[in-house]
């Protein structure tokens, strides 16, 4: 009996030891949260450029994937590590900031709030965010806008609607197919996507006759 108790005690102790081992393997003591030591914008900065990215430096190396940002007004953020500096991350706003607007950025690490950054953007006499949208729209709908209208001895092209080039044939010796092929070639040479464009032929306006 005494022997059994001794054996049982030993087993219990072994079990406890094993459990402790398992726990010790699984347990990771929580590291202190990283602390923001500086940002590219001093707290409550005013006249912040609408194009300025925000850099944030921490007191320790940081994994950008654990960082998340919530901003008021809302923006879409891209978070990247600063080149050559593991303690710093760069917050890129996909669109330009709204001008003359008070921003509040809350920085989370592993979903825990670690910092709030407030600043006001500079006033502008034009609206860069709107300008950006316009430029995106033009790049999407009229990718060759800066080069069109274009004219050579065989044809003249203009955009008549998004991604639609209207062709005026100037050389009567060439067929529509040949001209379209030539225009497509021109589009490709100028960095455009020939297949994304539509091509329509417009007949030249009749010459005035006496």
């Amino acid at each position, binding site marked *: 009996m005494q022997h059994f108790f001794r054996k049982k005690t030993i087993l219990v102790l072994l079990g406890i030891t094993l459990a402790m081992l398992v726990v010790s393997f699984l347990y990771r003591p929580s590291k202190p949260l990283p602390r923001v030591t500086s940002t590219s914008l001093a707290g409550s900065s005013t*006249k912040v*450029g*609408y*194009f300025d990215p925000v850099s944030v430096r921490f007191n320790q190396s940081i994994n950008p994937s654990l960082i998340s940002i919530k901003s008021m007004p809302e923006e879409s953020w891209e978070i990247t590590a600063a080149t050559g500096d593991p303690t710093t991350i760069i917050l890129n706003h996909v669109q330009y900031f*709204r*001008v003359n607007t008070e921003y509040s950025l809350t920085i989370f690490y592993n979903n825990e709030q670690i910092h709030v950054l407030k600043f006001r953007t*500079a*006033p*502008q*006499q*034009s*609206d*860069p*965010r*709107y*300008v950006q949208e*316009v*430029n995106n*729209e*033009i790049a999407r*709908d*009229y990718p060759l*806008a*800066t080069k*069109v*209208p274009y004219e050579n001895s065989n044809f003249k092209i*203009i*955009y*008549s*609607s*998004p991604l639609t080039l209207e062709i005026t044939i100037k050389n009567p010796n060439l067929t529509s197919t040949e001209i379209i092929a030539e225009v497509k070639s021109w589009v490709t040479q100028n960095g455009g996507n020939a297949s994304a464009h539509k091509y329509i032929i417009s007949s030249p306006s009749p010459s005035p006759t006496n």
Partner: protein
Amino acid sequence: MSIDTTQFQGFSYIKDNGVNKYLVEEYLLPGLAVQSRLGKGSRGIPLPTPFGKPQEFIKLEDAATLVLSWLEDNNHLYSKDKGQLIKLMRKVSYEQFATIASKIYQDRIQDPNKLFTVARQQNLELYREAQKKQAATTTPKFDPGKAISDYNRLYTQLLRAANLGTSPALFQKILPADVPVGRGDLSKQVLAQIIMQNITELRGAAHAYVGDEDKATQAVSRKLGEIISYSYPEQTAYLNLLGDKEISTNLNKFTENVEQQLVHDGIKLAEIDDLKNRAIAASGDVIATEYEIYQQVQSVLPLSSESEKKQFAKSLIQSINSSAGRPLSSDELISLAGARIGADTTQLQTIKTELEKSGLTFAIEYRQNELSVIVNSHRLTRSEHNLLRRGINPFKTEKSEADLTIEKDKLLKEFQIDSGTKFATIAEAHQFEQGRDKPNINWTRRFREHQDHLGAYTLLDFNEKGLVNRSHIGRRIENWRSKVDELQTKFFDKWVEFDENLPWNKGIRAAYEWYDKLAEGFVIKVGTTQIPIFRIVPWIYDRIDEWKKITTLKAIAKTSTWKNPVGKFIHWNLNQYKLGDYTVNGALYSTFRSAWGSGTKWALEKSVALATKMGVGSAFKYVTVSASRTATRLLLQIGGKTLAKTAVKIGTEAIGALLAAGTAIGTAFSVVLGALMVFDLIKLGWNFVKNFLSSSDFRGSVAKFGLTVGAIFLAIPAAFVSTLSVISLLMLSVLQPVLLSLAIIGIMIFVNNHNFSDLMTTVRLDSGSALQQVVGDIVCTLTGSEAPSKAGNPKLAAGKCVAQLLTQFGINPLTESNAVGAAFNSFSSGLGNGAAAAEAARSATSYKVFQCVGFDVVVDIMTGGSGTGWGNANTLLSSPPSGYKPVLGVGSCLPGDFFVDTSGVVGHTGIFVSNAGPYIKCMDANGGGPGLVRDESSCVWPSANVAGCLKKN
């Protein structure tokens, strides 16, 4: 010239240089204003004295006589002015004499450097030829036509001297190619013009230090700094360079070479200045007045009907007046007038050609530029500003029509006595005078002035006359205010007189006078030395001063051969000490000047000059109000006749003279003053620091001048410790806080007092100087294949030029960081338009990046617009800028119009180039990226988003 200086040959400067503008402006007038306040205590006015010789003083009455003769000889005096000045001389009111003489001088010639430019003086001859009217009116001493011809002949000789006497290489050292020149478009050509036009004054400054090369060099660069500060505010960035030793040495050398060549050619410097002044004074007599322009323009206009001619002539006068905010070219003025009456391009070109042929373009431009100088130097009431905006000249309509009629009768009666003939109108009397064998210029001037003023009313309609009448009320209130100020001054004068007569003050004064008398005669002899025991403090100062000079000069001579670094360092320090008038603060100033921008230096010069003599200096023009108050309070506390008067009327400028007088009061005063001024100046210094730290706008203002304030704050102790510590410890290092305060105050004075206005060089008549041959070509605009194709559209050409130049100099996009510095300066020079470049810089620095609206404004200014009234992009159609009208829809836009998109928070704008269907081709800024300027090769904008365009009125 013709001033009889025989009795003044004992004065070295007058013997060698005669009486010239430099002497009058720098010594005689300030001296009269200051020294006269000391009454019998004045030793006279100190004159420039050769190095090592005892100081020379000229009596006040002699100085006044010289000033009067000089003014008269240069034809700056009208007969009534002369009478007034003589009366003041008789009353021994020299202070008032100096004030009135200065005012006359300024009123007659305004600022010659702004009006009588090189190109203009040449064009004046062409004008006279075109007008086929040699001014026949003369006085026994003055013939305007001859004065102009004489000076032009002389100027040709001056150019020759500049070409022969100097080399481009030497000039290159005065304006190195790689240094920043700030906002102004300072080219070699412009700098050469500034130097050559002021050669007499510059050499005059050098001649005040005969025998001391270092001091002469310093004086020339200081003088040039003053000239630029006053007359060429757009070029103040160059002041930053003037302290540089190499630049100032070569500047002195350049002016010296020119002078030597002039001497070789038998031309006296004083002669140049005097001839120039006479020619300037003659300009007003020769050039058509506003009303004469109005009349003459009608006779040459190629328009069919008389009413059209009248309408255009009136529009032209209105344009001259309404644009007086800044000088414009005749071309711009005629275009403005054309726009007012809706003339088309062909019609406008024909008008321009005819006006050009008649020479009237010159008169049009001159009178507008003259008005802009006057407007910028006078305080106008709100209603007078309103008149100007409406194209009415408030200076011509200052007197009412009724007053002018009464004046006419009086004038005709006076003339009747002189001519023995009765006339009904001024025009008839004028014609009669012109028909005489020797027409008198004084009559002619009075007639023309009267006709000009009364004529201004003939251009006005009923409503406009009503406005003029209302402006008279505003003027009367303004005059009433001035009178109240005068009354206040008079009250203080009376109070002083009353105070003087109080028994105890009389007693104190008697005691002072007794003391002074005793002090003069009571001298103790110690060996060969005589010590005025009752004036011991000034005597000790004098001895210390002598000792300092002698020992310093000996040490400089001794250390001049030391070659090791420490020896060189000591030698350099000693030289700085000498250049600083043997005072620590002067030396510190000299060090500052070498090390930093001369904007700071200029102010320091004035401020440290005060400190040098415990708050004094002959530079009466630049005395600070604050320092003045300090002195006033102190003086009131001390009391006494001279001091109390000084206290009420003036500030610190008399204090130096007071000390120099060596009176008992002066002695007591010098002891107390130091302590009190230290307190006040430090307080003022603190206010500056506080303002600097708390106000971003203030910091911005300071930064605009290129004053590296941070550097200054660091450099004051650094320079002090590193370069002057040895001397400062040996001498009165206790003054350091004062110096710091003075330096700060100096900057403050400079920043607050400086004129920010951009003075655009006018385009047509004021360009293309013969001086170009002296200094070589400059890059002005894009040329050859790089030149933008104007295609008859100046706005497109201007926009393209901005884009190309920014790209060429690597500052496209333009942001707040690159809107200053060498690249931007090159851009500014290339643009050839300082005001436009300044606007680009302003836009980029105010908003961090160059704005779309800023781009429009730049183009507007470049094409003759006022650049005013531009709001955010989305407000431009609802509230169009000055000179533009809105049209709605993209279909209304033509090439060169400013397109406006009102979408988004604040919209967007740029120049409309062409319509390409779904989008337009354009030029803009901040549309393709922050601060990026795009021309038509890369700028497109959706047509659907264009709400409309701005067209020129």
